[in-house]
């Protein structure tokens, strides 16, 4: 499309900067001089996608090779989608503005289930058939990775290849294979069959699923002699793995507009509700020197004035205090601030507080997740009420006056007593503040309690658990609200219907593909955005396809049931998950990886915390 006409259309929509491209550090190449063009798609808005670390890493890594040009694509917001469809403008990549239907690869990152309709919509906007079987030999290979690839079955009919685990190595192996197949004139089918032999590559069309009368799965069988289980890939050495020396710096404000410096992958804690805590095992750290060097380099190449350390639990980094000292030695003089998200309550020391006080003061956020000790033991969130109160005291005497607390509602074995515990804990924190002689003078305290709804996820000890029904979610939310007696505490909670749909898709199987397709046709997209989400359209889509969503979300699954993700191997064994589930129901905790190995299975990778001296 001619530039002037394109710009005219852009000026008719909100936030045209989302679609303009040309940002600092974005990569422009000569398309005649590359062998592979890769459209890296994030199935949500620009502001969210650009905040994601995975896309930054892989974008830079792919582009570090002369033979690949990787470009970015985000889901156009509904206003621009309308303009695009009215003007027959196919989905394009930001850098070249070329239609992505002519690329070699279209790759999606699957960060949350509620983005699935956006994946399909983006394929449709590109002008491609959404089902893999309808896309011919001369269409792009559609690939997808990210955490949701651990149960990608609802998308099995639409995606050619799923990458399980970390992408830095396996993605390039597949691209290399593609180049070779292209050179030798192989068909798409031949390429996919060959790709299926690469570890970490899952080609869903090469697996057959059979079902029992009761709707559960009876058998998952590989075709054409492909492997029976697909094992996720991990990076073994975090110090030598590729990390970008520059980030694309957006022109418009994005959600996380700063340098993001990864410090380790995985988490030692094993909170039983947390999928990330299991699928990213084992814990592997970057060395202090690597972190320091990479962060410095990124600050220089971007001009950002803020660094955020990224991991699942920042304070579990073995050398956190020396690292902060090292970073502060150059960030402070350069007016660069440090953000430490994901701090845990139990090892949040005075010294650590002193360090972050050094930089810009934002609110304090803690995640006790459950209101009573009993329930915290069930979910293996090993923090005590005493620790929470102690930490708040430290924070209050350090000048903080607002605390944010995260909880989950609908956890297995939860009773009204546990919900009351949330309100009580909030009240105790308020009381603690007023009982302190050295509290900040003349200021009131504010405790915000944010309650999300628990959604059972694959590869967690709670993968067998029923999700509570929507009606019950709403009843519990109302009950909790009634227990809060002070205006110093503000309460917010998640929409119950979104959680329900997330629950269905998270543990869904291939039969949900047609539901997704129907939902898309009826206009569902941006389902994680409350202004777009429409539960009724989804219920109609389930109904039209004769599928009962409660079967997926609200049913107790037997330990020996074959789950839709049974043929995928994330290192963590099913027997460990069963054991953990039983321990949970026994209200017993499990020690973290550094205290004692619990034999989850992740040691099969031969790296990381599993081999540290204890």
């Amino acid at each position, binding site marked *: 499309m001619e530039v002037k006409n394109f710009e005219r259309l852009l000026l008719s929509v909100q936030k045209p900067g989302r679609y303009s491209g040309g940002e600092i550090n974005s990569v422009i190449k000569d398309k005649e001089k590359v062998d592979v063009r890769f459209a890296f798609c994030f199935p949500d808005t620009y502001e969210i996608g650009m905040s994601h670390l995975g896309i930054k890493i892989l974008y830079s890594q792919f582009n570090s090779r002369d033979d690949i040009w990787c470009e970015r694509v985000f889901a156009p917001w509904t206003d621009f989608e309308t303009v695009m469809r009215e003007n027959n403008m196919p989905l394009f990549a930001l850098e070249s503005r070329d239609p992505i239907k002519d690329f070699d690869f279209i790759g999606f990152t699957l960060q949350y289930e509620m983005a699935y309709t956006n994946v399909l919509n983006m394929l449709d906007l590109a002008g491609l058939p959404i089902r893999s079987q309808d896309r011919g030999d001369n269409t792009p290979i559609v690939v997808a990775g990210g955490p949701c690839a651990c149960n990608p079955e609802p998308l099995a009919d639409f995606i050619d290849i799923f990458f399980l685990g970390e992408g830095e190595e396996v993605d390039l192996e597949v691209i290399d294979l593609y180049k070779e197949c292209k050179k030798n004139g192989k068909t798409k089918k031949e390429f996919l069959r060959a790709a299926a032999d690469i570890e970490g590559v899952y080609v869903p069309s090469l697996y057959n699923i059979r079902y029992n009368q009761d709707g559960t799965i009876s058998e998952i069988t590989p075709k054409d002699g492909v492997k029976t289980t697909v094992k996720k890939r991990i990076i073994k050495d975090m110090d030598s793995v590729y990390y970008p020396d520059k980030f694309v710096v957006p022109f418009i404000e994005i959600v996380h507009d700063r340098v993001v410096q990864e410090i380790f992958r995985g988490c030692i804690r094993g909170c039983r509700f947390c999928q990330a805590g299991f699928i990213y095992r084992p814990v592997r750290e970057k060395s202090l020197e690597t972190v320091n060097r990479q962060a410095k380099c990124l600050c220089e190449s971007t001009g950002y*004035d803020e660094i955020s350390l990224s991991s699942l639990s920042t304070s579990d980094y073995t050398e956190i205090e020396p690292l902060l000292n090292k970073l502060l030695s150059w960030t402070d003089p350069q007016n660069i601030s440090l953000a430490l998200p994901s701090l845990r309550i139990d090892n949040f020391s005075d010294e650590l507080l002193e360090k972050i006080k050094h930089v810009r003061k934002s609110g304090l956020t803690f995640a006790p997740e459950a209101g009573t000790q009993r329930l915290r033991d069930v979910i293996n969130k090993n923090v005590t009420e005493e620790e929470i109160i102690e930490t708040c005291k430290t924070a209050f005497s350090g000048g903080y006056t607002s605390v944010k607390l995260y909880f989950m509602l609908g956890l297995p074995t939860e009773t009204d007593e546990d919900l009351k515990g949330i309100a009580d804990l909030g009240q105790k924190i308020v009381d603690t503040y007023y009982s302190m002689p050295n509290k900040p003078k003349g200021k009131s305290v504010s405790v915000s309690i944010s309650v999300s709804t628990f959604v059972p996820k694959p590869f967690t000890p709670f993968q067998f658990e029923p999700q509570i029904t929507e009606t019950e979610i709403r009843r519990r939310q109302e009950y909790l609200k009634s227990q809060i007696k002070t205006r110093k505490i503000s309460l917010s909670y998640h929409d119950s219907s979104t959680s329900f749909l997330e629950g269905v898709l998270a543990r869904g199987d291939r039969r949900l593909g047609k539901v997704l397709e129907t939902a898309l046709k009826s206009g569902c997209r941006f389902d994680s955005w409350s202004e777009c989400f429409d539960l009724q359209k989804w219920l109609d889509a389930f109904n039209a396809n004769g599928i009962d969503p409660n079967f997926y979300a609200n049913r107790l699954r037997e330990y020996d049931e074959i789950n839709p993700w049974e043929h995928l191997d994330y290192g963590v064994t099913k027997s460990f998950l069963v054991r953990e589930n039983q321990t949970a129901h026994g209200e017993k905790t499990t020690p973290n990886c550094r205290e004692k190995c619990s034999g989850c299975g992740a040691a099969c990778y031969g790296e990381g915390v599993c081999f540290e001296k204890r």
Partner: protein
Amino acid sequence: MKNVRIYFKKLGRMKFVSHLDMTRVMSRLIKKSGIPVWYTEGFNRHIYMNFALPLSLGFESVCEIMDIRLNDESFSNEETLEALKSVCPPDIEFFAVCDPVKPTKEIGFSEYKLEFDEIDSKMSTALNEFFARESVICEKVGKKGKVKEVDIIPKIHTHSIDGNVITLTLVAGSEDNLNPTLVMDTFFDNTGIIPTFYTVLRTAILDKSGNEFE
């Protein structure tokens, strides 16, 4: 400490960057360039920047002006320009760094070129008739959503039509400012000419006596 005035062009894809976003972009470019810039000393320390005249979203410009302060007085304007040039993205072009002569409150006018696909004779006649009126009252929506009535004619300093381009010199500055979009919206509303798409390029910033602002 010394003040320096930076001149730059904002073209192409940069036209989709709003003024607020532009301040963020500039602060990063300055930080990346490594020039010895002065930070404010308040609670939230940030790079001191003063944009002479914010540019509307969708407009291009060949004459943007931004003032900053340097800690190091011996750092020359040439060095500053070179450092900024080395970090700028394709559609921003830094082209001069000078010592400020006048404060930005001395800005009086701004010149714009509005390019249409076509200005036919009917529209051309209507434009001439419109600019020749003694007064045209229109409603202007202020920052806080307040609607007030303004007469735009006295605020149009000069106007000319050349082919498909209208050149307008309009009152500009922090006290009083007229946006060319408001002129055209009012024109289309008042004359019944069907609105068509046009691009806007700012070509000059002038002081209160109509000379180039320095």
